[in-house]
């Protein structure tokens, strides 16, 4: 069973960790293990909780970026009508870039998500993955070198990405199916490698996360509350996740205007090592 207190803590954690580049899946495995909470991750109650908290996070993301999504949807429809993705149509190009980036993780998630999460369910393995996530983020920042100035949100720069670059970011996102690797972190890393600034890489990561998280949650909706238990806990957790996700995305958009992934990289390495020691 999941108590209300656990639902509140895990809900808040889910909203934050889903959007911060520190792996939400990893934290939902590690925190209960560290706190010795005896939560059955395969129980209907916990699955309902996860689905609703993810749904809440996705809806918050969709809400924060709703203007962008309206423009992107318009661009996609315009390009289909004209049978052409015009170079000067920023949102049509951005829409198709997001489609290209979404396909690899979408397909892999549909086919292998459950198997991957079963293989990497052990807290020790997740802790190691978290350390690796931190190492990847740090390596990308080192490769990139020092920022020359503040990063400015510019959809034109996002739309200037090439399709192979979008595919690369999508492939990077595939690793986030392994608990311990962060979707936001890896997609941002992919964007940074392709010369996006932190602000734009962050925006692309959030735009890319919305359909994937939403689709994953919606696909699991039919099995929700199968036993009729845990409705209240799941709803409270979802509300907490929504609040923390909203605050997180607002904070991160401002944060990445001037700062880098380094603090999160260090956090992941330290937290991963600590979790590895504590869960042995």
């Amino acid at each position, binding site marked *: 069973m999941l108590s209300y207190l656990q639902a509140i803590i895990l809900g808040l954690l889910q909203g934050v960790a889903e959007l911060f580049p520190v792996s939400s899946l990893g934290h939902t495995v590690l925190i209960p293990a560290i706190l010795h909470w005896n939560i059955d991750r395969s129980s209907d109650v916990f699955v309902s909780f996860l689905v609703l908290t993810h749904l809440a996070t996705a809806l918050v993301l969709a809400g924060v970026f709703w203007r962008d999504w309206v423009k992107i949807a318009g661009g996609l429809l315009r*390009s289909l009508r004209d*049978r052409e*993705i015009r170079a000067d149509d920023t949102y049509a190009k951005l829409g198709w870039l997001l*489609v290209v980036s979404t396909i690899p993780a*979408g*397909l892999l998630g*549909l*086919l292998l998500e459950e198997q991957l999460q079963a293989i990497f369910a052990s807290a020790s393995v997740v802790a190691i993955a978290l350390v690796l996530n931190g190492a990847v983020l740090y390596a990308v920042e080192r490769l990139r070198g020092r920022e020359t100035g503040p990063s400015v949100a510019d959809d034109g720069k996002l739309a200037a990405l090439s399709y192979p670059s979008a595919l690369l970011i999508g492939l990077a996102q595939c690793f986030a199916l392994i608990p311990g690797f962060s979707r936001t972190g890896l997609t941002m890393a992919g964007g940074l490698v392709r010369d996006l600034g932190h602000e734009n890489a962050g925006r692309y990561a959030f735009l890319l996360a919305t359909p994937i998280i939403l689709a994953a949650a919606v*696909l699991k909706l039919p099995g929700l509350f199968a036993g009729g238990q845990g409705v209240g806990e799941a709803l409270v957790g979802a509300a907490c996740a929504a609040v923390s996700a909203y605050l997180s995305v607002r904070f991160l958009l401002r944060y990445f205007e001037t700062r880098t992934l380094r603090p999160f990289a260090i956090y992941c390495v330290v937290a991963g090592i600590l979790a590895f020691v504590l869960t042995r």
Partner: protein
Amino acid sequence: MPRIVALRVPRLAPMATCDHAAQLTDLYGHGRAVFAYMRVIQTQGSILAKPLVLVALVLGVVLLIVSAIYVLEPASSLPGFFPGYAAADAGHHYKHAIGALILALALFAFAWFQSKPRRAA
């Protein structure tokens, strides 16, 4: 002898080969060789473009059928080479169906963009 149709081609491609031009001049004479050559260039262009569109369309249709099979047939009745086949599983692999559908739609979108007729300048 093939019939030559006059085509509106904005300019001769710079990669025009002398071999083609010479052969066409032999066949059709000087006056009509230019038109014949234009046709060769345009045919070459469409030959390069069409197979990809055709492959995308065929693969898209195959994936649509695969998607339908995943929806309609339980895991135990799937062909043995399908991912997700399990002899003792009566469940349906809806996620596989969605995956195949997404790929099919992506291929159709590719074919849709690639098959747009190019307008002469």
